[in-house]
């Protein structure tokens, strides 16, 4: 790689040179070079607004570049369009998956290219056979007859990739593919990607999860502020160096978040044997003033359901919820807000924000009664609430009147958090508050969680990234199949053999222990099932 290009080698999968793109007055890309070899997994990294999605959209033909050249598999793209990119072999696997849930796997794979019988009718049986052969060849375990609606997130993603490969894709773009996947699904995805790599497919992998990048990628390209920072083999890029390049400053990673002792006060939120309609099941939990309790567990372990029960979105069917010692009944989100409970939900786009409405409208949504008198909204009060949260959380927006949908993911999440901080809750439940946002905003949010604990709030935090839980929480509850299985004080997970100030290694060791407990929980659950029968 580098300068001395070998003329005899097969053409590179992607060669983009000097790509520039401007949106209105904003320069998204300033002459970026991006090259991907056939048969490699190439990580594309950068913070929100670094230009990752723009360069991918240029590659994908959605945006025409203002300057620069694009070559895909040796073929110069002169008139960029999504169709031209697809013909050249680029396939993009989106975060929001593009399968039709009501059709079968086989029907989806061959959608718009259906196998026809002699009479011109659709021949589902042959399509199914072809799909079965395809899945077998690629060693993917998905039933072609199954309805996509019945598949898990992991299987859907594999189906989507198989569909792309069946259309002769040579360059596969995966944008945050693991967000919705469980640990074992990610494992399966990685195995599959390695296989595709061996078949000479070039894979561009975008993720905010550094541990995944370290495991799957061969090389990485890092962008910052629309510029190319570095392209290097992963072996030359330790995680700390990567983060440094992404953030642009030293030491803003997780290991930097201060974990000073906070005075733990009286119990604020108490759950006594709380059950939901399906999950959670018989969960007891106490969160004190100034304490952050983490919920760990796999996808579907009932963590989010528990959060929704606390916030009044799902009904509790048994048990008792006490706030500051008083039993209360929470039948709606309004009741929860009345009890000064707030939930930052997991699905930002649907549950958190109204994308078409302004930042100010979103920030004031949960406190409409406070910014109004006898039903008439005071514009000034709304502006005050909005400006206060924009400043406090350093939300990057051109103005409070801009639509939230135009902000980056990290800033959208800050709007959701700001909406709830405006309500000044005593009890804050955060469900995957850092999902899909860049590492800089991530540590900002974790820092904020600690700050809120210091200010005397009781906090429940859900995260699939154990390092975050370990950084933010004082206590961690492991959940499995709706039940709270085990509970650990954060310091119990410390390794006495390691120096206490070696935060990075302490974190790694604690992460391993916690991972072990999550897996253990799963085993015990299996045993209990046997006993119950």
């Amino acid at each position, binding site marked *: 790689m580098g300068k001395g290009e070998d003329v005899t080698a097969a053409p590179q999968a992607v060669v983009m040179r000097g790509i520039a793109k401007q949106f209105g007055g904003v320069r998204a890309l300033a002459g970026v070079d991006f090259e991907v070899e056939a048969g490699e997994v190439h990580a594309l990294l950068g913070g929100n607004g670094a230009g990752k999605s723009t360069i991918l959209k240029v590659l994908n033909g959605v945006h025409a570049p203002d300057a620069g050249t694009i070559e895909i598999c040796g073929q110069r793209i002169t008139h960029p369009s999504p169709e031209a990119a697809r013909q050249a072999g680029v396939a993009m696997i989106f975060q929001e998956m593009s399968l039709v849930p009501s059709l079968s796997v086989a029907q989806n794979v061959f959608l718009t290219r259906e196998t026809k019988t002699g009479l011109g009718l659709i021949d589902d049986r042959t399509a199914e056979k072809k799909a079965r052969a395809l899945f077998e060849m690629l060693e993917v375990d998905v039933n072609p007859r199954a309805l996509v609606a019945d598949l898990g997130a992991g299987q859907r993603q594999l189906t989507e990739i198989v569909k792309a490969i069946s259309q002769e894709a040579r360059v596969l773009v995966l944008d945050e593919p693991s967000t919705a996947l469980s640990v074992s699904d990610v494992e399966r995805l990685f195995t599959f990607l390695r296989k595709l790599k061996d078949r000479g497919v070039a894979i561009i992998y975008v993720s905010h999860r550094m541990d995944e990048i370290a495991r799957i990628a061969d090389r990485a390209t890092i962008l910052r502020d629309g510029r190319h920072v570095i392209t290097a083999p992963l072996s030359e890029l330790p995680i700390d160096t990567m983060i440094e390049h992404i953030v642009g400053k030293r030491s803003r990673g997780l290991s930097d978040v201060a974990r000073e002792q906070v005075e733990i006060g009286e119990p604020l939120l108490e759950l006594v044997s709380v059950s939901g309609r399906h999950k959670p099941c018989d969960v007891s939990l106490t969160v004190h003033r100034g304490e952050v309790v983490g919920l760990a567990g796999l996808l579907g372990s009932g963590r989010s359901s528990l959060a929704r029960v606390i916030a009044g979105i799902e009904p509790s069917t048994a048990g008792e919820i006490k706030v500051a010692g008083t039993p209360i009944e929470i039948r709606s989100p309004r009741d929860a807000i009345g009890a000064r409970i707030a939930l930052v939900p997991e699905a930002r786009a649907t*549950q958190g924000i109204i994308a078409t*409405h302004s930042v100010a409208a979103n920030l004031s949504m*949960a406190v409409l009664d406070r910014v109004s008198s006898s039903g008439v909204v005071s514009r000034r009060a709304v502006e005050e609430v909005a400006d206060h949260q924009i400043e406090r959380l350093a939300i990057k927006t051109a103005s409070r009147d801009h639509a939230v949908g135009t902000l980056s993911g990290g800033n959208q999440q800050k709007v959701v958090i700001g909406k709830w901080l405006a309500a000044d809750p005593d009890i804050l439940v955060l469900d995957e508050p850092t999902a899909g946002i860049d590492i800089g905003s991530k540590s900002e949010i974790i820092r904020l969680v600690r700050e809120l604990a210091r200010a005397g709030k009781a906090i429940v935090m859900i995260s699939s990234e154990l390092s975050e839980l370990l950084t933010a929480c004082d206590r961690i509850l492991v959940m499995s199949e709706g039940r709270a299985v085990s509970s650990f004080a954060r310091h119990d997970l410390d390794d006495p053999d390691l120096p206490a100030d070696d935060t990075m290694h302490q974190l790694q060791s604690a992460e391993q222990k916690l991972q072990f407990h999550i897996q253990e929980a799963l085993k015990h659950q299996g045993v209990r099932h046997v006993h119950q029968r």
Partner: protein
Amino acid sequence: MIFAIFALTLNDKGFLNPNNLLNIVRQTAMIAVMAIAMTFVLSSGEIDLSVGAVAGLASVTAAMAIAAGGIFFGVAAGLATGIAVGVFNGLLTTRIGIPSFLTTLAMMGIAKGVAMWISGTAAVPIINPGYSWLFGGGSIGIVPVLLLWMLGLGAVGHFVLKRTTFGRRVLATGGGETAARYSGIDTSSVKFRVLVISSMAAALAGMLYAGRLQSGRFQLGEGDELSVIAAAVLGGTSLFGGYGTVIGTIVGALMIGLINNGLILMGLEFSQQLIARGGIIILAVALSQKRN
């Protein structure tokens, strides 16, 4: 633009005559009254197809009640008709979860049927000059009372949508129902209320029709739902919820009124009017969608 086209092509037929323009206002007021409420319904992500039929029904109940017990009884009966239909629409939509599209489509038939049944398909005359003056026929100087109804309700609607917590909740419900619910907004109650408001506005429009024509008939308001929805969408209200403006809606209603009036003055037959009106509305709405 539509105004300009008609002004040029129909100049010699009296389009710009002040009397004709006031006439347009008189004809448009009922559409505007219903469209103001429809702005709330659409903004909340729902739709109400029953407005035209409810207007007809309310004109009949109001006329019958006036005959039986005078003006106050008549007005109360008309509004009660609207409230009853609205509560019915609202409960079916929010409690049972039938989409408002279907609830109100069915209600369109029910309301029309009831109106035909109780009136024996005959016009019910209103012999009450006070009522006729207040609800449609009267004017103060040259200002028609209908214009005042339209502007008064428009001002109230604009204020409520833009400046009150209820308006914010309506827009939030239509903009992102889940996010609104998670934020503590009772989205069912919001939808219930906009549907009741819509039916009440439709009942009022029916009473205005009745006052203007001095009789209640089941045909009054027939087919108005298209004009009403088109007026709101022309004015910039989103068919998908989350955005709406009452001022835009009133402008939209006036445009619809211009179209209707212009087509009549052009001397088109009723059948031709229907075709032309449908085409123009589709074109205009398509243009306003594209702009968004």
